[in-house]
């Protein structure tokens, strides 16, 4: 948070709270105040970027413990209802936050808030580039012209690598003003300003195709500012409610482009010819944009048994950033000049919703919903040349039309439930989802879903539910080369293809989905509660031979809680999750034509994600000794395995080897002991232990020069053992 914003927040807080306090105290009893304040010190040992990912506790050392929370309000039976609420959390950490609200209940109020959000992205990053934080990244002056077949191992990294931080920081400052001018009406104005600064990972690549890249990991500068404003009007009577909202969002990026020096100036690291070898490359960063949305919603209770609601929303998303040149390599001749200087991008969105629910007689609940949603992309379509990464001969790459994607959706839901007594019911549901897409392999998909759910109490102590759903999705004829033919100029013809014609993308392919879920809850006694649950879902992409062929999700969980009294509560839970993704591919090379049916080229990968999670804790208070102990422990063990199979031609090497598992084990233990030294002063001692152990073949032992043609940051997957101890005093008032 910038200093002037902190000062502004504090000054505004004082200025706005003073009249409320003064008014509240004139001729009246003082406000009743209660709250807590905590201050102390903590120390981190074994910090890591991953441990401090969202708190900033990434380095060993001491930190300040500070928090504050207070509420002041008129006595409940006073003839005024002024209130003040303040809260400050994590003041000594990078995720500190402040909140303030004051007002007269039922009349008006004002809120201010601030939140800082760090995000540590990677540890141990090394790069020869300097200029991080800016949009021009340069190599050391001594960087040589590498030999024509040079790769990362020939680069002078030992003398040039330097450590950099990959981290972003958000600073949010918000305000809310509301007032209720008369009965049934309420108006709100919300404003939020957020800046996000720092660096994140991107890559700069040279090379005319994926077989001949020369890429470098780069620190992309992040310097964003987003302003948001909402204006809301609410009307509510007992039967009729209306809400109108204007929402505006304005995003600005300080940097529209990133330039970086070419580390592969000697040539193609894989030995092929590179034309027009450039000294520099340039990419576009996220463009400034804005969005406006107007929503009108209403609800009407037709009777005690029937209610209808509806909503109509219209929105516009705009983007008109100046376009960069095709390339900054002046040696490349450009066939088709830029068709426009800026995009003039615009997407109009329209959404209409209507819903009704009714209770028929004593036992039947019925409801229906309809949604029409339209994303109409008005961005102009133009012909653009394609300069492949500032390297290749322009004449080889052709011209292309951009494809501004539009969607519209009709969604219908019908649900009915029959009540079986007070606490049980059986429901049936049907959903129809019709979605149309432009520039897609499939213009329209349709999905029909049937569902059933039974819930209830078998006894006073046992309740639960079980549900089942079946969904079938199909659609228009799948034309695999449709996006290619709609984009390439001129139309390459019906025989052209880019993807394997047998590929079916999973978000638009045919799919049969079965899903079952069940939960049972048992109040074993006045003090013990037990809950068991299970779920299983199977997605069968029944007409897919290339692509995702099957997806599955299996879960089981058990929970137990124990509440002996207000002095002793304990809990324990266990969960198992298993996700499966089965996919199939077929390796082919340029110039080959379908049918692709050489049995040696097919391959499959069945990915299985297995996660065991466990949690346990207790909260114990001894009133005689004024001592309170709390414990919370969580454990997560994740294993991602890859079952690989392929013919001799599936990967070009003739053999197929198993992939290693990706593993993550996380133990986290939080212990706290509190001692009430006096009724208003508590001494607190806290300890946090976290053990994080991960194994990831994509990161472990991958040094900057491990890959032939990608100069990487390096840094292994996270492993750490962190200890944090904190000593603090809590004042209760």
């Amino acid at each position, binding site marked *: 948070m910038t200093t002037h914003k902190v000062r502004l927040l504090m000054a505004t807080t004082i200025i706005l709270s003073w009249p409320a306090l003064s008014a509240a105290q004139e001729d009246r009893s003082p406000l009743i105040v209660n709250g807590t304040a905590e201050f102390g010190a903590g120390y981190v040992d074994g910090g890591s970027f991953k441990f401090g990912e969202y708190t900033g506790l990434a380095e060993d050392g001491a930190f300040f413990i500070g928090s504050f929370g207070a509420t002041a309000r008129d006595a409940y039976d006073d003839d005024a209802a002024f209130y003040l609420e303040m809260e400050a959390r994590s003041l000594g950490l990078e995720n500190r936050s402040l909140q303030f609200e004051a007002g007269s209940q039922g009349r008006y109020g004002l809120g201010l808030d601030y939140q800082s959000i760090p995000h540590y992205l990677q540890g141990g990053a090394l790069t020869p580039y300097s200029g991080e934080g800016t949009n021009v990244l340069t190599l050391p002056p001594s960087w040589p012209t590498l030999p024509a077949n040079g790769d990362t191992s020939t680069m002078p990294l030992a003398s040039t690598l330097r450590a950099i931080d990959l981290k972003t920081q958000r600073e949010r400052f918000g305000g809310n003003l509301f007032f209720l001018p008369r009965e049934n009406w309420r108006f709100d104005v919300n404003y939020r300003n957020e800046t996000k600064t720092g660096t994140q990972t991107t890559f700069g690549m040279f090379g005319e195709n994926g077989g001949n890249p020369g890429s470098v990991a780069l620190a992309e500068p992040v310097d964003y500012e987003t302003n948001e404003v909402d204006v809301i009007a609410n*009307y509510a009577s007992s039967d009729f409610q209306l809400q109108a909202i204007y929402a505006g969002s304005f995003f600005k990026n300080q940097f529209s482009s990133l330039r970086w020096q070419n580390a592969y100036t000697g040539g193609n690291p894989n030995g092929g010819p590179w034309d027009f070898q450039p000294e520099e490359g340039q990419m576009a960063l996220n463009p400034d944009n804005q969005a406006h949305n107007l929503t009108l919603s209403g609800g009407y209770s037709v009777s005690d048994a029937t209610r209808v609601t509806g*909503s109509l929303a219209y929105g516009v998303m705009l983007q008109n950033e100046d376009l960069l040149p095709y390339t900054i390599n002046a040696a490349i001749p450009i066939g088709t000049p830029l068709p426009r200087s800026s995009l003039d991008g615009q997407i109009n969105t329209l959404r209409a919703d209507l819903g009704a629910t009714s209770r028929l007689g004593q036992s039947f609940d019925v409801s229906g919903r309809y949604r029409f949603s339209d994303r109409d992309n008005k961005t102009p379509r133009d012909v653009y040349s394609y300069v492949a990464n500032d390297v290749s001969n322009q004449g080889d790459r052709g011209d292309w039309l951009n494809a501004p994607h539009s969607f519209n959706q009709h969604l219908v839901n019908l649900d009915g439930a029959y009540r079986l007594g*007070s606490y049980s019911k059986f429901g049936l549901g049907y959903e129809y989802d019709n979605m149309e897409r432009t520039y897609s392999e499939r213009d329209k998909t349709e999905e029909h879903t049937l569902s059933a759910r039974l819930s209830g109490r078998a006894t006073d102590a046992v309740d639960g539910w079980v549900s089942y759903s*079946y969904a079938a999705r199909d659609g228009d004829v799948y034309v695999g080369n449709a996006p290619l033919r709609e984009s390439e100029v001129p139309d390459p013809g019906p025989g052209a293809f880019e993807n394997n014609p047998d590929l079916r993308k999973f978000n638009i392919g045919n799919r049969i989905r079965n899903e079952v879920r069940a939960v049972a809850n048992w109040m074993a006694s006045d003090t013990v509660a037990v809950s068991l649950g299970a779920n299983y879902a199977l997605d069968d992409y029944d007409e897919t031979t290339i692509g995702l062929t099957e997806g599955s999700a299996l879960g089981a969980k058990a929970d137990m809680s124990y509440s002996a009294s207000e002095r002793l509560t304990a809990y324990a839970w266990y969960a198992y999750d298993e996700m499966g993704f089965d996919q199939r591919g077929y390796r082919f090379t340029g110039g080959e034509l379908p049918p692709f049916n050489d049995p040696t080229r097919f391959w499959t990968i069945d990915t299985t994600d297995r996660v065991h999670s466990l949690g346990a804790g207790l909260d114990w208070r001894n009133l005689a000794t004024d001592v309170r102990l709390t414990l919370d422990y969580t454990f997560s063990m*994740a294993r991602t395995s890859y079952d690989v199979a392929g013919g001799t031609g599936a990967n070009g090497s003739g053999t197929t080897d198993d992939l290693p598992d990706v593993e993550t084990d996380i133990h986290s233990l939080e212990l706290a002991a509190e001692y009430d030294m006096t009724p208003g002063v508590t001494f607190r001692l806290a300890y946090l232990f976290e053990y994080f152990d991960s194994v990831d073949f*994509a990161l472990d032992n991958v040094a900057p020069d491990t890959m032939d043609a990608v100069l990487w940051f390096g840094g292994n997957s996270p492993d750490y053992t962190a200890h944090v101890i904190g000593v603090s005093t809590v004042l209760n008032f």
Partner: protein
Amino acid sequence: MIARASMPRLLVSILLPLILLLQADDARAQDGTLGEASPPVQLAQAATVGSDVCLECHNEAPTNLILHTPHAQTADNRTPFARGGCETCHGPGAAHADNPDVAIGVSYGPRSSNPAAEQSGVCLGCHQSGDRMNWHMSKHEAADRPCSSCHNVHARKDPMLQKASQIKVCVACHTEQRAGLVKRSRHPMREGIIACSDCHNPHGSFSSEGLVKASVNETCFGCHAEKRGPFLWEHQPVAEDCSICHNPHGTTQPKLLKARGPFLCQTCHQASFHPSTLYDGGAVTRADTHLLANNCLNCHPRVHGSNHPSGKRFAR
């Protein structure tokens, strides 16, 4: 693994006996309404006793903490205490005051004998506007979860309305999301920076999964406005639905991805040469650029869309 063909039969064989069992459940009559009334509990003057009488017995925390909450402010004529005090929400208390064994009209919480719709109906008498307009079509209502399942109006600060404590309330039932919180890749929810209600409206909305905005993408753009575009070169699934590739509740893969590249990318990209090649254990050994580090993004980093005229393949 359950065979698809046998699944419907299995479900029927489970559901039918359960229906028969539950038919024998308490046959207490429903009132045939959606639980709406204003004021929600009809107070016959003769049957009421006033809050002072209630507080003679219910004079300990947490019950009497209601007096320190917005619901008790009599100066605000919308509150229960400006109308009939405790009995506005709990119903006339004379019979209960005379004989504590006689149950109060409406009680709340897991041991309440009042049906969920009846409990929620009391709250809806005052709280049916704005973001709660669609309560009757919400999944929580359909699952017979009354307002008191999540809210505690007697607490000085309702845990559900505090970012730091809300998550514990939600994951008590949403256990799959609880497991996500302790996975390697996650949003900053354990730190209290993001709350479930930043993305979801638990009171129901027209969007799928009860989101606060009209769609998944509009919800995500609330914090990730840089990905909103529109871009010159759009990546179709990005424009359609972020959740095609990401699971916001936590995953075992980087960047909240459901699966990692190149495998995730290869479910939709099977072009000649490297996109259609199998990357197996041998690719680890030979340090293949398509598998290690950020895999496909090593060369195609602008995967959320590019505004560069030569950004067709998301490399610029």
